[in-house]
Every structure is written in structure tokens, then in C-alpha cells.
């Protein structure tokens, strides 16, 4: 039996990392992810893991070190947030383009300016198209479970791509929750031995990493990268099935909550999904067929599966904890709209931007969105597609 503990999200991620016991970690502190590495380095200092740490001078070097270590041929992880991820941006593409299965915890936080250390999804959304697998987590339990599964997914021989596990800064990273930890042995066996692929340290078969590719082959490389991404969803499902065997917890590409017979629905990522589910229950009690869809695998985005799950609804509100500047809709909204595009009959779609920079997401906000959906489903009319909620006018 595993054990049930009261722990923070960061603690849970650090615990998962201890249990997986990677070979190398290269990291730089940044709020609110700092705590993961503080905990992890104490495991290192106390001999609880075999991991060699590289405590670098910037996030750019953190990811550079991860890339070097991963190419050398071993299991590698790191953690970051916000500006740290932004500073890594160039390296994120190199990690995925080089097909290195690095695992990173991304404790979601707003981007500057103005400087803000609190939770929102601007960082993860900014990195959504850099070729990394993204798993998003509603709570500490999911962050823990996703971290363990991320290694198996990233290191799968058909994939070999970096993966980031997203969890909400402070809301999840620093709040204490009830968590079920698995036994060390179970996690170790689940993660398995790291299998090398073209390691730099193999002197018998010297390899060159990071060539220059001109117009002759660059597109072919990029297409290959896109094709590899298309294999990710099946691997995510397979790994989830195996994970269920050791944990009893089910995971899919996304979670649906009372969605099967729903007429209206919310689509929302991470911690705010919990609050929304409570409000959906209230609407159900009032006889309103409301439901929710919470994406888990956000990149690659399972367009087809999510489109299928939402196509029968009358009205859907997509809630984004990040905005895309330039009069655009929120990033999640754009993906949901794309997933529904192929269908002739599709729900009315609205977009709410909420919770930026750690602004609270309250039940009243979910209620507001759902009430608007009730109205839209009835009349077929909406007041406006995109709107900020919980903002002072």
C-alpha cells in the first residue's frame, strides 16, 4: 500500500521525482517552482536519490544542461515557471527538435510585465507550440500522477520527446491537499530502466547532435516531428492504463464531468476545474444539464476526440487563464473552436478570460458563465464572444 499524506503540489512533484530517481537534473530557482528543487536537492544532499545536480546560473543554462545530459544518455528532469520558461524558449525547441525525453514540471505563473508571481497559464501557453508534450493537472494528486507518467510517455521508443507537467502556481504548488503516494518500488518499476538512444557517451558509435539543415531537408525534419507528435495520444492512453493498474486512478486525454447528456458545458484547464465542477453540480440540482471538459493532454491537442465529446452540446464556454494579444481569443478557445470546426452542427462558443496573475476564480464566475450558456442555448444569441471576467471595470 502507498500512503496518504497531506502535502503541497510542489512537495508531491518532488516526491514523484524522488521515486523516479533521474540520473541528472539541471535547474535554476524560480518562484513558485523553486520549492520543487529545494525539496529535491535535499533528497540529493541526503543520499535519497542517485541524481547528479547541475545548479546553473540561468534557466537558459538549466535547459542547455538538460539537453547535454539527455543527449549524453540518461534520465533528466527539471522544473521552472514563468520568466524561467520564457528564458528557456529557444532551448525548448532544441530539446524537442533533438528528440530528447526531458521531463519538466511547469508551475504555471503569469509573465511580466507587470511583474507578477502568481498563477496563470501565460507561460505554458506561450510554449504550447514548441514541440513538447504538455500534461495539465487539476490538483496535487494529478501533478504527482502526471509527473510519474510523463517519464514513461516522453521516453517511449516511438516518441522520445520532452514533456512538461503543468500545475497551477501557488493554488496547487503551495496549497496542502490530501494525496495518495504510491510505494517507491511501484513507481520505480513503472518508470523502468532508462533506455538510451544514440547516446553521446557511446564512444564505439560516435554521433553528431545538432547539425545544420538547410532548405534541402529542414521541412522533412519538421514533418517528421509533427508525425511523431501524432503518436503521442495513444501512448498517453496506454501509459494511463498501466498507471491505473498500480494506482487505481484513471486518466485519459481529457476528463469529462457530467458531460454525456449535457446541453451546456464549460471547458477549463487545471485547478479552476474543481470549482467549476461544484457549480455544475448546483446547476444539475436545478435540472440544468450542465457538464465540463478538462483537457489533460494539451499538446498534442486531441482535436478529434475533444470535438467528438463537445459536438452535441448546445452551448460551450471556454475559460482561458491566459490571453492572446491582438484582438484574438484565448489560446484554449482557439483550440476548442478548431476541434469543432469540422462539424456542421456545433455548439455556440463563448470565451471568458479569468484568473490572470492569480486573481481568484470564484464559484460566481462559473455561475455567470453557465447562466450565459443557458440563455444562449435557449435564444441562440450571445452578447459577445470574448469577455474578461472577475476584472474591475
Amino acid at each position: 500500500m502507498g500512503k496518504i499524506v497531506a502535502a503541497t503540489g510542489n512537495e508531491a512533484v518532488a516526491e514523484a521525482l524522488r521515486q523516479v530517481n533521474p540520473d541528472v537534473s539541471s535547474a535554476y530557482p524560480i518562484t513558485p517552482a523553486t520549492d520543487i528543487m529545494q525539496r529535491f536537492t535535499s533528497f540529493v544532499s541526503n543520499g535519497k536519490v542517485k541524481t547528479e545536480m547541475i545548479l546553473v546560473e540561468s534557466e537558459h543554462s538549466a535547459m542547455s544542461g538538460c539537453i547535454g545530459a539527455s543527449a549524453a544518455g540518461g534520465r533528466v528532469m527539471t522544473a521552472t515557471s514563468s520568466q524561467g520558461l520564457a528564458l528557456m524558449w529557444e532551448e525548448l525547441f532544441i530539446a524537442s527538435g533533438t528528440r530528447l525525453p526531458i521531463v519538466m514540471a511547469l508551475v504555471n505563473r503569469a509573465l511580466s510585465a507587470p511583474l507578477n508571481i502568481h498563477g496563470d497559464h501565460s507561460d505554458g501557453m506561450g510554449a504550447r507550440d514548441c514541440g513538447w508534450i504538455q500534461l495539465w493537472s487539476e490538483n496535487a494528486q494529478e501533478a504527482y500522477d502526471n509527473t510519474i507518467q510523463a517519464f514513461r510517455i516522453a521516453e517511449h521508443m516511438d516518441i522520445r520527446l520532452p514533456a512538461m507537467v503543468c500545475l497551477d502556481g501557488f493554488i496547487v504548488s503551495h496549497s496542502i491537499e490530501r494525496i495518495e503516494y504510491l510505494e517507491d518500488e511501484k513507481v520505480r518499476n513503472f518508470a523502468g530502466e532508462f533506455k538510451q538512444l544514440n547516446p553521446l557517451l557511446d564512444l564505439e558509435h560516435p554521433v553528431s547532435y545538432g547539425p545544420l539543415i538547410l532548405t534541402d531537408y529542414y521541412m522533412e525534419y519538421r514533418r517528421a516531428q509533427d508525425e511523431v507528435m501524432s503518436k503521442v495520444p495513444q501512448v498517453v492512453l496506454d501509459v494511463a492504463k498501466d498507471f491505473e493498474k498500480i494506482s487505481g486512478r484513471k486518466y485519459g486525454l481529457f476528463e469529462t464531468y457530467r458531460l454525456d447528456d449535457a446541453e451546456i458545458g464549460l471547458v477549463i484547464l487545471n485547478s479552476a476545474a474543481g470549482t467549476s465542477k461544484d457549480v455544475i453540480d448546483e446547476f444539475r440540482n436545478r435540472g440544468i444539464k450542465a457538464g465540463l471538459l478538462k483537457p489533460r493532454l494539451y499538446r498534442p491537442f486531441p482535436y478529434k476526440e475533444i470535438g467528438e465529446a463537445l459536438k452535441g452540446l448546445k452551448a460551450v464556454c471556454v475559460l482561458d487563464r491566459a490571453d492572446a494579444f491582438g484582438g484574438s481569443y484565448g489560446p484554449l478557445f482557439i483550440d476548442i473552436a478548431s476541434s469543432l470546426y469540422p462539424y456542421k452542427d456545433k455548439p455556440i462558443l463563448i470565451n471568458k478570460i479569468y484568473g490572470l496573475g492569480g486573481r481568484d476564480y470564484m464559484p460566481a464566475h462559473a455561475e455567470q458563465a453557465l447562466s450565459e450558456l443557458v440563455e444562449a442555448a435557449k435564444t441562440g444569441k450571445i452578447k459577445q464572444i470574448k469577455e474578461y471576467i472577475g476584472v474591475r471595470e
Partner: protein
Amino acid sequence: MATELRLKELSKKDMLLTSGHRMCSGCGAPIIVKMVLLASEYPIIAANATGCLEVSTCISDYTAWKIPWIHNAFENAAATISGVETMYRALKKQGKIDKEIKFIAFGGDGGTYDIGFQSLSGAMERGHDMIYICYDNGAYMNTGIQRSSATPFGADTTTCPAGSVIPGKPQNRKNLTKIMAAHNIPYAAQASPSHWLDLMKKVRKALEIKGPKFLNIISPCNRGWRSRTDDAIQLSRLAVETCYWPLYEIEDGVTKITVTPKEKKPIADFLKPQGRFKHLFAPENEWMLKKIQEDIDKEWAGLQKCSAAEEKKLE
């Protein structure tokens, strides 16, 4: 027994950077890489900053490197090799690898003095067991001969062109070798491909020292220096003989000149064959030549004083 550092013996060793790489003819960098790899008796894994050396030696499916090699980006060869070296230590500790392997990062002056400076400084401070080698040709040559902080005073480059108001680069070069030594690393040195034995001895010495080492090697670039394609060695020799590029090492804080020119030549001998300094020989720019000579004399005198003082201490 280690291969003797004699041409006859060295010629029997494998070249680990193959011919057919696409560096310009007459470029100093591949000569330096070949010398470094020939000097080593250990297997080497190399990282390379973005730059001429990288884009020319590994294009598409073709690589000129017969050793494991990684290119990551412009500014992070030091951080990347830190990662490789750390994984090596991790796997060695776990008993998964038992070979003795050495790690070298190569970067041009842009990737070392400028954009890669933070990554290099960090790697040195952390004490990775590696050698960082800068091949210094004094500009961002690959991107079109723009000035770098290694560009010498007065040089004509595409971003500090010698004009009627500004006669070339207004600032002096950054003294990176001294800055690296100031990290209190166990070994920092300057070398030149013209003095191959000195260069190879320094590589050998660095390979035997545990911890972070830095080698700054002058690397003539005929495209950027506007010089002939067959004079890389001649020019790097003149750089040493004019004391523009003194050959010295700083081992455990002790400075030692390793090659003292028999006769110190005037700096004009080094500048004249290079088109990038042509304007310095116009009458109105005489003051610049004078300043360059004064700076070199001062630097050389300081180095000699430092080296002599250390020698005296050792006696």
C-alpha cells in the same frame, strides 16, 4: 605510453576532424581543432557553439567529426558540455560506464566573449571537469564580420566600419583570458597554431588537470581579416612575435610566459598584411597605431613583470 609530441609520431594518429569539412580554405579553426584532438590521448566528447566551425563541420547527414559531438545553440556550449559531463559522472558513479573520457567545448569569440559569456562563467564556477577552447578570430565572422568584444581597437568590421568620423572599432578588446583566470580555475592559457608544440603541450597539461580549464587560441580568418588564404600560420606567428597575442599560462594562479619572442617585432608587422587595418596606415590615423603599440607594450611589460615575480617566488 603517450604519443610523443613529435610530428613523425603525431602523423601516425587518426585525424578526428576529417578533411572534407566545409570551412574556408586557410581558416585557422579546423587547424586548431585538429591540433587539440591530436594532442589528446583520451577519448574526447565535444560541444560546439553555433558559429563557423559548427555550421561548416556538420551539415545535414554529413559530419566531419569522428568523435561524439553536440551542437546546441550559440550561447551555451559550456552549459551543454556541463550537462554531458554531469551525465558521465552520474553514470560512472552508478557503474554504467568505466572509460576515462574528457570533455571539450569549442566556441568562437562571439559565442565565448559575448553571448556565451554567462554560460561559460557559470560552468567555470561550478567546476565541471572540462576544457573550454575559444578560437578567437576577433569578430562575428560567420554572420558577416561584425564587431565582437574580442575585436581589436581600430579594426574595420561591418558594424564598426572605418569611416571619416569613426576610424574603426573605438574600444579595446576584452581580455578574456585574464577574466577566466580570475574565476580561480586551475588552468587558463593562451595559445597559437603557429606554435603547435606549445599549443599541444597546453592541451595535454589541461587534460591532466581536474576541473575547469580555459584555452584561448588565436584563429586567423582570412575573410574577416582581409588577408591571404595561405597566411593563417604566418599571421598567428606575427601575433605572437609582436606580443599582440602573448603565449602564457596561468596555472593555479601562477602566471608564466611560455614563449618569449627572440626579438619583439613592431605591431605594424602584424597589422599591415590585414585589410581590416589598412586605414590605420593613413597619415591622419598615426595616433591609432601609436596607441595600439603603447597598449601592447604596457600589457607585455605587465605580463613579463608578473611572470618574473612568480618565477622569483618559485626559486
